[in-house]
């Protein structure tokens, strides 16, 4: 161990009332400590964490010139900050303090007082040897840029961006589709109030567009994230629209002017049910109201040869830019809100429901588009042949609560199935059969809505549909379908003929959720949704400081919950940005430049990307602002060049020697 004559260690053994003193002879323990090298004084006291206890430490530091402090008491997770602060108050560097945990890990876990005493001796000696090797460190703070990035422009991202912008913060909102609005923009009405989705969403979308503090980047994706809380450097990939956003006024004349007289390509916004031209806009109220050109099918771009009716129609605005290219832009932000939303489950993997095989089996999202006045049928609910269904079946829990697909409950399907039942009935007068396992309607006014739909005459059949088969055996267009279901309340198996089946599909993580997870340095829970820091106490934080979650990317949830969570995430981000700075971990790793040979073993080991290889100097460099202090690189460094504050090789080795010599 370090033989440094200037070392003067003060040792304090806490009684913790009778918690420690009842099991351990604290006086003997203090006496034992007195005999150890470099110990200038050792005391025992009733409650070290009390004000007089702390005062004792402060006074001793000044009076006896102590330059290291060991407190044998409870877990460092409880009172390490307390004693660090006390030392600092007395002018001693706060990191020259070490605790020996003799309460939680000694006094409370054994009745054998002899063994307990030996163990306490070992832990105390270990702390004394360890603290001798401690170094004075400066507290490090990092400034937080007062600018936020919101990733995802659905209702969660929109709400978060607006809240932040209204608080006066600059916001960069990134959306990968040509318009913001997300899934909510596709819906017709929202449960349980039956507000028109567009009526409540589009004003918010416009507000985003008009807000002076919000920079809107649509048709863009996050390419990479570097840096750490306070200073994230985000690269954004901007896909070419082939139309200059700043020149376009959204008159849509180009779409009329396109040489394709008929819209013939499936419109993804309409779930492929509607058609679009090579130059198109997802829906009339899109924000920004700028069309986008599909380079795959645009004759000018794909073949280099077209009469360019669109350009002619655009006229003197001259907004078309066929030579536009993908661009990478970099933004530095202090905080990030991830609001990348969900993906609707694709039921074609369930063979017995015949989705994709029988034309009149639809997903709920497809039906939303059919019901939407802005949708492909202008709000008319029809079968593929254009006729109106007379009997409609709605299958709950498709892909949810199913060990074969997603074991979790998607939370919103029951309610949107009730809503669809109501809308179908309202628009077509059809008979509606909702086949459910349980109706889960635990929200505000949800049960009342359920009652209302029941009163309207929708039939509720308790049972999971087993098969959907064509009534006439060939499943041809216009042919009826049979839902085969065990009515578990009736106790009989029923075959229910319907014209249309709506599959209430699950909400699942986005297909690229794991890429997004890696980019932002956050985790996914078992089902693939992003993992919050704590399910109850930190529901919008992530393990990565400064990155917050909002909306269905964290788990299936409905619009009210999404909006609430978005505001919570915005508030958390605001709190951080308004504080202006955040304290860094003291136990960061660093590289001894002389010793590093640039072997690059450590680079890939850091999940926070804190280590980079300096190609010029051929060494590894650790960014202290990014380092979280796990010490994995230190343990892995083959040359011993990677070192760590507080948890260095020397400190841990000394602790080990202290422990092992007292068995």
């Amino acid at each position, binding site marked *: 161990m370090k033989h440094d004559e200037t070392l003067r260690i003060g040792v304090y053994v806490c009684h913790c009332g009778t918690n420690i003193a009842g099991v351990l002879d604290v006086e003997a323990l203090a006496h034992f400590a007195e005999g150890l090298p470099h110990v200038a004084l050792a005391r025992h006291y009733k409650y070290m964490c009390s004000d007089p206890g702390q005062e004792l430490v402060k006074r001793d530091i000044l009076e006896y010139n102590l330059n290291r402090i060991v407190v044998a008491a409870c877990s460092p997770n409880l009172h390490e900050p307390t004693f660090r602060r006390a030392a600092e108050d007395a002018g001693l560097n706060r990191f020259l303090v070490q605790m020996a945990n003799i309460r939680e890990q000694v006094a409370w876990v054994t009745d054998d007082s002899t063994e307990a005493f030996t163990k306490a001796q070992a832990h105390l000696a270990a702390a004394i040897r360890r603290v001798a090797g401690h170094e004075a460190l400066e507290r490090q703070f990092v400034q937080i840029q007062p600018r936020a990035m919101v990733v995802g422009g659905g209702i969660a991202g929109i709400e978060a961006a607006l809240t932040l912008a209204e608080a006066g913060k600059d916001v960069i909102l990134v959306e990968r589709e040509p318009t913001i609005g997300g899934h909510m923009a596709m819906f017709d009405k929202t449960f349980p109030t039956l507000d028109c989705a567009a009526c409540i969403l589009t004003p918010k979308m416009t507000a985003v567009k008009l807000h002076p503090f919000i920079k809107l980047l649509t048709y863009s994706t996050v390419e990479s994230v570097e840096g750490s809380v306070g200073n994230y450097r985000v690269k954004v990939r901007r896909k070419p629209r082939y139309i200059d956003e700043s020149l376009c006024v959204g008159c849509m004349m180009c779409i009329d002017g396109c040489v394709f007289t008929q819209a013939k390509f499936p419109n993804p916004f309409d779930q492929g049910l509607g058609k679009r031209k090579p130059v198109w806009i997802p829906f009339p109220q899109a924000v920004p109201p700028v069309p986008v050109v599909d380079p795959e099918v645009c004759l000018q771009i794909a073949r280099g040869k077209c009469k360019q009716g669109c350009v002619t129609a655009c006229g003197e605005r001259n907004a078309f830019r066929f030579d536009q290219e993908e661009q990478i832009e970099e933004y530095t932000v202090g905080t990030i809100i991830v609001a990348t939303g969900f993906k609707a489950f694709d039921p074609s993997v369930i063979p017995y429901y015949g989705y994709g095989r029988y034309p009149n089996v639809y997903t709920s999202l497809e039906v939303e588009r059919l019901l939407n006045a802005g949708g492909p049928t202008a709000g008319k609910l029809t079968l593929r042949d254009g006729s109106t269904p007379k009997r409609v079946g709605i299958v709950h829990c498709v892909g949810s609560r199913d060990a*074969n697909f997603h074991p979790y409950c998607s939370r919103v399907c029951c309610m949107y199935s009730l809503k669809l039942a109501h809308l179908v009935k309202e628009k077509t007068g059809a008979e509606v059969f909702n086949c459910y396992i349980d109706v889960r309607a635990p929200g505000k006014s949800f049960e009342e809505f359920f009652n209302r739909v029941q009163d309207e005459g929708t039939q509720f059949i308790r049972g999971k549909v*087993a098969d959907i088969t064509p009534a006439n055996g060939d499943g041809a267009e216009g042919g009826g379908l049979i839902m085969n279901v065990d009515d*578990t309340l009736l106790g009989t198996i029923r075959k229910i003929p319907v014209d249309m089946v709506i599959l209430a599909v699950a909400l699942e993580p986005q297909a690229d959720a794991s890429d997004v997870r890696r980019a932002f340095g956050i985790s996914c829970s078992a089902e693939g949704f992003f993992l919050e820091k704590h399910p109850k106490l930190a529901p919008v934080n992530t393990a990565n400081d400064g990155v917050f979650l909002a909306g269905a990317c964290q788990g299936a949830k409905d619009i009210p919950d999404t909006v609430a969570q978005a505001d919570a995430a915005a508030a958390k981000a605001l709190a951080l940005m308004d504080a202006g700075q955040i304290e860094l971990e003291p136990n960061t790793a660093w590289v001894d430049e002389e010793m590093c040979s640039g072997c690059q073993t450590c680079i890939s080991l850091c999940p926070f990307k804190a280590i980079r290889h300096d190609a010029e100097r051929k060494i590894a460099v650790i960014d202290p602002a990014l380092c979280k202090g796990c010490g994995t690189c230190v343990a892995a460094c083959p040359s011993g060049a990677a070192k760590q504050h507080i948890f260095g090789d020397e400190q841990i080795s000394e602790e080990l020697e202290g422990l092992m010599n007292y068995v």
Partner: protein
Amino acid sequence: MSTAMDRQGVELLERLGKSGEGKSPQGCMQCGLCAASCPLGYAMEFPPRKLILQAESGNLEKVLASPSLWMCIGCYTCSLRCPRDIELTDGLWPALRDQSLQAGIQPPAELQETFQNLFKYGNNLGKSPRQRLDWAKDLDVRVLDLSKEPRPVDVLWLVGCYPSYYPRNQVVTRAFARILTELGVTWGVLGAKEKAVGECERMFGEEGLFETLVEENRKLLDKCEFQTLLTLDPHAFRALQKFYPQHGAWYPVKHYTTFLHERMEQLKPLVLKPVKATVTYHDNCCVGRRCESFDPPRELLGLIPGVELVEMERNRENSLCCGGGGGGMWLDAHIVAHGGHRLSDERIRQAAATGADTLAVSCPYELSRFEDAAKVTSLEGKLRVRDIIELLAESMDLGERNVS
């Protein structure tokens, strides 16, 4: 009021939950997917979800005595669709049947007969073991009887009961012997020593009988040196692949469709003779739905020049069972008597609806079941039922030489 029987049901379910086969039946949420998926669920007094509900509610006695206990034909549809991942087919049904037999409740008479046959003769058909190799009489390829001439072989072929004894199946058996020889593998059979694998017995709930068979077969098989254990019967395959290892008997077993599929390259130059037929393939439940082997049999058929493949509405994992599994082979009368129907009749109509002239199968039970069904549904002569082996053999010119 609580009786000993009350608790028995719950205890049985608890035991099943801990057996490691699927999730605990106590997690059943009574969604009814099993009942409505079951091709005979409509006729059952207690389809799977009700079995669980009743057993849990202290009515095990009722369940054990119900005729519906003997109506599951082991098609695995409910097991695979169950959203709570409960192993109904291989777990719940056999356990309840076992309990029923232990409670001294008589199973349907037909079953008792097959039990006795198996006991006496080692096969369900009640045939003499000495006749096991009758199919190979005057065969133009040599059949090595490993029980008489032990030596290491590539393939130990467990011929199976139906393929050994049943005249219609013997045609297939002989064809397969020729194909094996043509492929140049060394192969042998167990001859008169061979016994049933016992899959049906396990499904019947005759766990004790099954264990005896495992022991006996293990003694036989352990003496032989082979690379692959081959079966024509998908049920035997399933038992050897899944249940034998649970009793410590593990063998590298393959169903013939997989075995031949692995040798597609070798087969390609041999299947030369066009077989003019529109063929629809019926997925058997064990190799198909349960083991998700859907493409190999289709690819084998696709090799044969002249064959046009058409699909039935219900195919692959959604295929309808022939009704012969899980003891169904002997239970048609019982099933029909209690409100059910012969699934083979329904299935062959589905096959005919495709316009095919040939129904291809890959399970020994199906030949006889579907040929009977063709008669009943007046499809005889319009729809031929043939094993994939027969079609391959015809194209390889290895078909029956003296078939009239």
